């Protein structure tokens, strides 16, 4: 049984259908990629899974329970963690305090009086931003802030990790290190679900990939299968089958910012 099951979810904003009968799963110990052009409904899917957005139709099942009606914080308490595409770091707090707050929320009032700096710094070190620990979170570079969001999320011991474009703003070396970290996290039993535009990263770390276009899942499969899929090529590049052959996945990267 998969850890997370998204079951025929539909989200409509007025006349616009942002997500149209999307169905996919995420398993413990594996990394699942969610890709697609801008506006395909990826972030909306994340909002539905975390409870920030009510689906018009469909269900979310998590650890074999229907959590569709659960509030945001309850899902989080049961191990659903996420980062945001448009950053949601606590800008007035230092990087260290950002993670500390997460620990304090996770631990409840009893944790408010303990001293947990060691654990916090370990997490900052793990994502590689310990050098920034004492800086205000609104003064650090975007890429670093994304890693901070990941560290903050890890502080609450998530079982399901939703990462919304985690690598944008990272340079090549940082992206490689980040990919290794993801594999490591999955190895520890975490289910990672990732929205990402860096195709190299997606293709190299994901076990499964789902492609969204206009709110609908147009393809699912392993990286190799996705790379060869004609529908995906069309959705990304607008090419017909006849002139697609010259383009490989690295082109996708160029098209999508």
């Amino acid at each position: 049984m998969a850890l997370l099951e998204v079951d025929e979810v539909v989200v409509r904003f007025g006349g616009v259908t942002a997500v149209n009968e999307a169905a996919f799963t995420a398993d413990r110990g594996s990394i699942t990629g969610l890709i697609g052009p801008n506006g395909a409904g990826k972030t909306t899917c994340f909002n539905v899974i975390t409870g920030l957005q009510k689906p018009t139709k469909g269900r979310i099942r998590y650890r074999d329970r229907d959590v569709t009606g659960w509030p945001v914080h309850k899902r989080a308490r049961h191990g659903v963690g996420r980062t945001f595409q448009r950053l949601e770091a606590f800008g007035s707090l230092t990087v260290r305090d950002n993670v500390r707050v997460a620990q304090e929320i996770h631990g409840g009032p009893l944790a408010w009086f303990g001293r947990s700096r060691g654990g916090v710094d370990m997490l900052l070190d793990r994502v590689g931003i310990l050098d920034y620990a004492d800086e205000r979170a609104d003064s650090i570079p975007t890429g670093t802030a994304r890693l901070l969001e990941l560290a903050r999320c890890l502080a609450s011991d998530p079982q399901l990790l939703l990462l919304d474009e985690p690598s944008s703003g990272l340079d090549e070396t940082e992206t490689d290190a980040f990919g290794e970290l993801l594999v490591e996290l999955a190895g520890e039993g975490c289910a990672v679900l990732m929205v990402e535009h860096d195709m190299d990263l997606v293709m190299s770390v994901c076990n499964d990939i789902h492609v969204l276009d206009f709110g609908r899942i147009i393809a699912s499969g392993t990286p190799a299968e996705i790379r060869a899929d004609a529908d995906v090529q069309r959705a990304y590049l607008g090419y017909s089958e006849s002139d697609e052959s010259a383009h490989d996945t690295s082109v996708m990267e160029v098209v999508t910012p």
Partner: protein
Amino acid sequence: MSSLFAYTLLGLFTGAAYAIMASGLVLTYTTTRVFNIAHGAFGMLLSFVFWDFTQRQGVPTWLALILVLGVVAPAIGWFIQRFVTRGLGEGPVSVALVVTLGMLVALIGLAQQLWPPEPRALLPFYAGTSWNVGGTYVTAHQLITLLCAIAVAFGLYLLLSRTRIGTAMRASVDNPELLKLFGGKPDRVAALSWMIGISLAALGGILLAPVVLLDYYALTLLVINAYAAAMIGKLKSLPMTFAGAMILGILESYAVAYLPKDGILNSVRAVIPALFLFVIVVAMPQAQLRIGQVKGIVTAPLPTMRRSLGSGAGLLVVAFVLINAVAPNQVLLIGVAATYAIVMLSLVLLTGYGGHVSLAQFTFAGIGALTYAKLDEPNLFGLAVAALVAAGAGALVALPVLRLTGLYLALSTMAFAVLMDKVIFNADFAFKFNGTLAAQRLSILGMRIGSDTSYVWFMVLAFVVLALGLLLLRRGALGRLLIAMRDSPSACGTLGLDMRWFRVGLFALSAGIAGLAGGLFAGLRGTVGAADFLYFQSLLVLLLAVVFGATSVTGALLGGTALMLLPEFQASAPEMAGLLFVVIGVGAVLLGRDPNGLANYLFKLGRWTGGKVAPGLEGRLQGLLPRGGGAEPAATGDVVLEADVESTMVIEKVG
């Protein structure tokens, strides 16, 4: 049956006037994101202008109407948008609310200056003319009101759907940034909607003045009616707003007709709009968390613990010197300032740290005072009970609006304050109508603090202890959580924080602090009554707290002192009162630039002088005054109070 028809008809006419007022409110709010809490106050002021034109200057009614609605009101609207509220809609809700609150207070002050209290009446249009409709009489004024409402509805419809600028107005409701990109001019749109909005406030006020009387406060309070009506349309839909206004009018009319004329239910009639508002707010759907918002607010600097302790000790010394130096009747004034300052501390927690606005903080103090006055032999335990009861009331207010945030929460607290002021405090189990209760001085371990001087010093001590506690809290886990919640509620939610209950707890704690201040205040005064806790006082408390700086305890101290001085100056030194008003007005407008208030400018000044002007002075000063400037010169009461404030600033600097 025919009486039901008559009252329904009557309600429709009042509702029509509410609809005119409410549509103006909705128009300005949707296009500029600034909720004009002074909407009713503008209606009030312009009704007085209309009265002045027609009754004092002898201008014909039709000409006066054209002048007020077509010239004066739009000019005011343009001016306000251009110089006061421009750009406020993009900032935090609390700042926009406090700036318009500043206008409300200023408008009432202005009206009282221009037209000192005396009985004056605005006559209905064509007084005496009426027709019999189905067995009930309809006056010409009522018919005109209804026709005006229809004209306003039709005019707004034409403007919004048939004109270019109307389309731009509708576009700016959804996304002003996008409008700018497409070549629209949000400033012009905003100016026009403020001009129309103020005109509609004026028309509503003029039409309602014969019904609710030409009174500074009654007309100002109409903003609650307008707001309640607008809430039916979620502050967006004009047709729903009109419907809401009609329902409210009819409900009020039925209340007049069918509620018993004696007992507590009689006073309920006056608060129908507030009750109506509560019901709608409770029925509102859950507010969705917003993602992708501006974060990282620069708050006032947090002093080190050593510096805070030093400042606290300094303040106690200054207070001691001051209390023993001033005239006996001025000792009590220092106690009043301490009361206000403690209530403002509760706002530092709620508004400054937590980002929520309460327009009922002095009402919570009233609940604390009421509880305290009911105790015989009040001791520290009794004071704690007073705080707890107020905290319970705070939780009760926050509970129904648990799911809502920002503006809705703030305006519900205003409805609560009006409800308490007009109904509960006047009830027989409370202070009774026009009544007062006697309150004892506080006893500690069996010793009564009898003398004024020691009691007031104890109040200052309470302020210092609470302020230190607050700073300690701000430094700890709770403080981090509060900031995190203000920076990104969505992130807090996805990390597992149940913000609804957290908010209730925060409200309760804040109300508890205010209740404690109320208890101390009751002990100070000896007798307290409903008149000490008018809803308007809560508005002043919030205004001065935010203007002087709701993000620092120094701001609370300054604000409390200023609020005490204001009526004193008004009575004895009007020119000083004028100066203070100017300071408050400038401070309110400056909030758009720095939401940390005037205290933060002082901090900046302190750092600047400390760093640039006198680098060596700090060391020398520290040598001279080991624990901050306790030895300030003590001259006459009022002046020294200012010195008191300044000396604490010095302490913050020198520490």
